[in-house]
């Protein structure tokens, strides 16, 4: 009686594990990516449906538990589906952080049930459950802090003296409680352990500035994966093991790639508290020259090559659609237009690609920084929209600048640079931008969307 159900569960998990790997592989190329998520989604549906069979009539709580499972599935799915449908593309990083934190919380909850209920017995399972609980708990509370910061619900960074020592002490104390639990499990010790893990997640995240948050979210993504994998070992659940470890390693690599794109090490991001350094570099000699949107547009109309460097400001102003309309006008008039994307344009790597894709910009005129950086010197016009730190030449030369060493887009090498900007504010890192003071640079002040409308009009008035 029991055997066929067990076999069905195992076979379904095997299929799910295959679909997860296959789906993730498909997601790693833009051509097949959409199919990839659908395959992985099919794996998830299979795994969840078959897992309903865990509810066994032998448990006296059978009916209650089954009802609770169904209600919980409905509530979680409905809420997340509704949220996911309506979240704007600009808020994608914090949404990923939120969903990721939920996964970490679920992994911690599994550990809590196994430990409070004393289901996990022996050093091996208990140790794995505790390790998974620690990582999952940190990911849960840390992701919530990351979400609150990006959502603007929390002050950017909170720092105090002795912070690193306090963090280290909390972590050590939590680990000590973990060892204590292995010596003899009580509910009080387990509660202390979870309190420590959750506190450490908060403490670790609050000093990190908003600019670094994407890397942190990616790190917590890997954390949750690892926690899920560890709890999978505790429950002897192969789907969880494979999916969790897969994401744990893929997420770690993705985190390192992101950190490298910002020319920082992971340790540097986590422990050096960049993000709102005191303004470095001081005053810059020279003056800002402003230009009319119409004049800039006409120059681009008669250029042969224009490269656009978009930043998060473009998306904040919701100007992507107008920008693409302008680009199409230029293309119809024989101008070669390309987009240059800095690895950290937007709020995380690839975010700007998504924002442009939303406006319908085809991905084959969008180029990564390393592929296009040599082309700026051939460009007649470089148009910078809502970007700042990613085009600041100080990153190349000024050792005092907090962004020193970060690779930048070589927009300053174009014959003419136009910068569309709301006002004279500074970038996310709080650094003055030398580029704006260069001879070949003109500022076009105004809301990006309004400026784009003016530019479209100017080009249209010229006729074809």
């Amino acid at each position: 009686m029991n055997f066929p159900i067990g076999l069905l569960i195992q076979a379904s998990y095997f299929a799910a594990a295959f679909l997860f790997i296959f789906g993730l592989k498909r997601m790693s190329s833009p051509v097949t990516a959409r199919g990839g998520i659908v395959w992985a989604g099919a794996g998830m549906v299979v795994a969840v449906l078959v897992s309903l069979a865990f509810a066994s009539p032998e448990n006296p709580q059978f009916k209650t538990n089954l009802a609770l499972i169904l209600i919980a599935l409905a509530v979680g799915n409905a809420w997340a589906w509704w949220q996911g449908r309506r979240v704007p593309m600009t808020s994608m990083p914090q949404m990923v952080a939120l969903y990721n934190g939920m996964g970490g919380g679920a992994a911690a909850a599994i550990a809590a049930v196994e430990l409070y209920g004393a289901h996990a017995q022996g050093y091996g399972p208990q140790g794995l459950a505790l390790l998974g609980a620690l990582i999952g708990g940190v990911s849960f509370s840390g992701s919530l802090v990351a979400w609150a910061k990006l959502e603007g619900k929390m002050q950017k960074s909170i720092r105090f003296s002795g912070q690193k020592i306090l963090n280290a002490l909390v972590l050590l104390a939590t680990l000590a409680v973990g060892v204590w639990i292995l010596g003899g499990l009580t509910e009080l010790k387990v509660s202390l352990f979870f309190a420590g893990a959750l506190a450490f997640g908060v403490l670790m995240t609050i000093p990190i500035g908003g600019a670094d948050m994407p890397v942190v979210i990616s790190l917590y993504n890997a954390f949750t994966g690892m926690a899920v994998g560890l709890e999978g070992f505790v429950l002897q659940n192969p789907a969880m093991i494979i999916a969790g470890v897969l994401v744990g390693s893929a997420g770690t690599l993705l985190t390192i790639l992101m950190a490298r794109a910002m020319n920082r090490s992971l340790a540097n991001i986590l422990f050096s508290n960049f993000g709102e350094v005191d303004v470095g570099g001081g005053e810059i000699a020279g003056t800002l020259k402003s230009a009319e949107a119409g004049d800039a547009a006409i120059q681009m109309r008669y250029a042969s090559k224009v490269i656009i460097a978009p930043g998060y400001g473009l998306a904040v102003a919701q100007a992507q659609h107008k920008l693409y309309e302008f680009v199409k006008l230029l293309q119809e008039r024989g101008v070669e237009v390309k987009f240059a994307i800095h690895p950290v344009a937007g709020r995380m790597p690839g975010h700007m690609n998504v924002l442009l894709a939303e406006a319908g910009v085809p991905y084959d005129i969008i180029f990564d920084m390393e592929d296009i950086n040599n082309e700026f010197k051939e460009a007649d016009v470089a148009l910078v929209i809502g970007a700042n730190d990613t085009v600041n030449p100080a990153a190349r030369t000024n050792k005092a600048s907090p962004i020193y060493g970060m690779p930048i887009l070589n927009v300053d090498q174009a014959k003419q640079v136009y910068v569309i900007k709301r006002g004279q504010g500074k970038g996310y890192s709080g650094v003055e931008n030398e580029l704006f003071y260069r001879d070949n640079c003109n500022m076009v002040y105004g809301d990006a969307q309004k400026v784009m409308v003016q530019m479209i009009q100017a080009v249209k008035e010229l006729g074809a």
Partner: protein
Amino acid sequence: MDATLTLTGFVALYIFMLAAFTGYEIIGRVPAILHTPLMSGSNFIHGVVVVGAMYALANAHTWLEQAIGFAGVVLGAGNAAGGYVVTERMLGMFKSSKPEQK
């Protein structure tokens, strides 16, 4: 979990190693343009944690276990469903200009 499969000791370590390498290899050659959707996609995949939470809740005996298990399933289901929706939305927007030119 049903006793048809035992994943302990070295078998567990082998699975760990192979899955870790698989993840590493898949992400290693990915273009930066896909980093955000891929982070979101891998975020969806660890949503399979909901399965473990369902197991924990199914085997709960006390109200405390039921409460924690319930929270676990809600969180896990949110992770899976939310991860799927946002990833699918993002990837659905990527398109090439090539077919339209013909």
